[in-house]
C-alpha cells in the first residue's frame, strides 16, 4: 500500500515539476525584456540557493560566505574569457574545480579539530571577505575597476556560451532545472540519506558507520563547485564582474534568502523563495529610487526574513504543501484507495 502511495505522490511531483518548467519556458518565449531579465536573476539565484541548500538543508553545514565560491566561478569565467578568449565552458569547469578545492580546504581546516557550528560559519565569511579584499587589490583581475565582457554580437554561440538576454534566460532555466533534478537525484542516492543522517545527529550517524569527516568535506566541495557554476553564468549575464558585488557579504545574503524564505532542505524551496523575494526586492529598490529613499529594499528584506523565521520557520513551500494536503486530503486519499482496488 505504501509503495502505491509513494508512486501516487511521485506522479504528482513529476506533473507539478513539468508544469512549472513548461510555464517558465513559455515565460521565456513570450515575456517582455524586463520580465526576462528579472526572471533570469530569479532562476540563477534559485540555482545558487539550491547549492547553498545542499550544504545546510541536507548536509547540515552553515555557510554565510557563499559569495566566495560564486566569485571564484565568476572570476574563472571572466579572466579566461576576457583576458585569453577561452570559452566560458572551460571557465565554468575551472571555476568549479577551483571553488570545490577551496571549499574542501576550508572544510578540512575547520573539521580537522572538530571545530564546527558557529566557528565554521564565521570562517566561511572570513574567507569570503579575505578573497574579496584580495581581488579588489589585484590589478590583473581588474581590481576595483572590475572586468567587462564585450557586448554580445547578437548571434547565439553555444560553444562560447554567448547570446542575447533570452538565450541567458534559457541557460538559467536549464541550470535551475538541473539544480532541482540534481538535488532530487542526490537526496535519493545514498549520499542524501547519509548526509541527512549526519545533519540530524552527527554522533548517531557516526555510530551507524557514517564517515562524517569525509562526507562533510564532500558536501561542502560539491556545494562550492555548483555555486561557482552559478557564479560563472551570473557574470556572463551581468556582463561585468566587480569584487564588491560578486564576492561581498550582500551576495552571500542574497544566496541564502531564497532557500530560507522558500523552505530549507526542500527541493522546490529555493525556487519558490527566489520567486517571492527577488521581484519584491527589485520592486522595493525601484520604489526607493523613485521616492529617493535608498534603504527601502534593505528594510523590506530584513522584515521579510524576520517574519518568515517568526511565522513560517520552515518556509513558504512546506506551508503551501500543508495547505494543499489540508484542502484536498480526503478526496486524494479516496483516489489512492480506489487505485489499490484496481491493482
Amino acid at each position, binding site marked *: 500500500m505504501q509503495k502505491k502511495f509513494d508512486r501516487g505522490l511521485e506522479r504528482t511531483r513529476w506533473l507539478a515539476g513539468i508544469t512549472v518548467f513548461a510555464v517558465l519556458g513559455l515565460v521565456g518565449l513570450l515575456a517582455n525584456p524586463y520580465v526576462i531579465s528579472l526572471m533570469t536573476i530569479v532562476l540563477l539565484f534559485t540555482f545558487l540557493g539550491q547549492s547553498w541548500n545542499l550544504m*545546510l538543508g541536507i548536509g547540515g553545514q*552553515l555557510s*554565510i560566505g557563499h559569495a566566495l565560491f560564486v566569485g571564484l566561478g565568476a572570476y574563472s569565467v571572466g579572466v579566461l574569457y576576457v583576458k585569453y578568449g577561452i570559452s566560458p565552458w572551460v571557465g565554468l569547469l575551472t571555476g568549479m574545480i577551483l571553488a570545490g578545492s577551496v571549499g574542501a580546504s576550508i572544510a578540512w*581546516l*575547520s573539521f*580537522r*579539530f572538530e*571545530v*564546527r*557550528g*558557529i*566557528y565554521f*560559519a*564565521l*570562517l566561511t*565569511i*572570513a*574567507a569570503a*571577505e*579575505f578573497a574579496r*579584499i*584580495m581581488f*579588489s*587589490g589585484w590589478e590583473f583581475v581588474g581590481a576595483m575597476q572590475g572586468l567587462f565582457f564585450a557586448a554580445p554580437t547578437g548571434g547565439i554561440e553555444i560553444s562560447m556560451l554567448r547570446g542575447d538576454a533570452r538565450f541567458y534566460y534559457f541557460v538559467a532555466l536549464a541550470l535551475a532545472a538541473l539544480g532541482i533534478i540534481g538535488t532530487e537525484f542526490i537526496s535519493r542516492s545514498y549520499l542524501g540519506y547519509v548526509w541527512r543522517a549526519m545533519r540530524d545527529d552527527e554522533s548517531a550517524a557516526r555510530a551507524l558507520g557514517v564517515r562524517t569527516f569525509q562526507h562533510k568535506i564532500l558536501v561542502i566541495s560539491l556545494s562550492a563547485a555548483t555555486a561557482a557554476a552559478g557564479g560563472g553564468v551570473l557574470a556572463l549575464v551581468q556582463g561585468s564582474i566587480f569584487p564588491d558585488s560578486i564576492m561581498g*557579504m550582500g551576495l552571500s*545574503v542574497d544566496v*541564502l534568502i531564497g532557500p*530560507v524564505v522558500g523552505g*530549507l532542505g526542500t527541493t522546490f524551496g529555493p525556487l519558490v523563495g527566489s520567486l517571492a523575494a527577488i521581484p519584491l526586492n527589485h520592486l522595493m529598490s525601484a520604489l526607493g529610487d523613485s521616492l529617493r*529613499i*535608498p*534603504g*527601502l*529594499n*534593505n*528594510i*523590506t*528584506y*530584513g*522584515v*521579510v*526574513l*524576520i517574519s518568515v*523565521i*517568526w511565522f513560517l*520557520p520552515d518556509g513558504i513551500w512546506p506551508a503551501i504543501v500543508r495547505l494543499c494536503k489540508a484542502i484536498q486530503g480526503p478526496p486524494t486519499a479516496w483516489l489512492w484507495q480506489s487505485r489499490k482496488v484496481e491493482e
Partner: protein
Amino acid sequence: MLSLWLNVLASGILLGLVYGLVALGLTIIFGVMRVVNFAHGEMVVFGVYIGYWTVRLWNVPIIVAAAIAAVVMFAFGYLLEALIVKRFVNRPHHYQFIVFIGLSLLFSGTLLVAFGPDPRPTASQLSFQTVSLGLVTLDLARVQAAATAGLLIALLGAYLKFSPFGRSLRAAADNRLGGLIVGLNIPRVYAVTFGIGAACAGVAGALISPLFDAQPYLAVDFTLLAFVTVIVGGLGSFGGALLGGLVIGVAEAIAALMFTPSMKTALPYALLIIILVFRPRGFFGAKEI
C-alpha cells in the same frame, strides 16, 4: 625610523582598545546567550551617529556623547532582546543567523532612510589636536577614545567580577540549568546582557566618531571586524576579546605602513586564517560551541 614604528605601534594599540570594547560586547552576548549578534556592526554605527548628532546639536565633548550612547544603546539592546531576540535564543544557530541578518538589513536600511548614504564627519574639538610623549605623537581624539575604552573595559570587568548582577551573569553563562535551579531570572539576565553588549558597541561607536565618518555602510566592516577579533581571542572569553582587539589594531596599523591600503583591511582576515590553522579555538577559546 624608530619613532615612525613607535607611532604606528602606539596608534594601533589605541585603536585596538576600542576594537576590544566592540568585541567585548559581542563576546559577552555570546558567552551568556550562545547567540552571535550579526547586527553588532550596526550597533557600532548607531553609536557613531549618536556621536555625530550630539556633537553637532549640542556641541558636547565626546565623553558626554559616549555616555548618551551607552544609555540609549543599553535600552535599545534590552528592548531588542525582550521583544525579538528572546524568541530565537533556543533555536538552531542558522535560524539565529538569519534573524540577525534580517535585523542588520533592517537597521542599515533604517539608517539609510534616516540619514542617507553620504558620510558625515563629526566635528569634534579634538580632531586636530595632538599630544607628544617623547618620540611618539598621537592625536588627542584617539588617545581619549582609547583611554575611555580602556577604562570602560576595566570597569565592566570589575562589575562582572564583583557585583551581584555580574555574578548572576557569569553563572548564567556557566550553566543555564544551574541558573534556573538557584532561581535566576534568566530572561532578565539575557535582556540585560544584550543591553550591555549593545552599549559596548554603541559607546565604542561614539568614541570613534571623530575618527570615522558616520556612514551606514560602515556596519558590515565593523561586524566582520568584531567577528575576526573575537575568533582571534576565542569566542566567549573576556580577556580574549581584549587581546584580539589589540592584536588586530596593531596588525592593521603595521599593515597600513608596509602594504597597500587594501592589504591593510585584508590582514586581519589573513591573521584569522593563520590562527585557525594553529589554534582553532583562538587564544582563550571556550570549549563548547
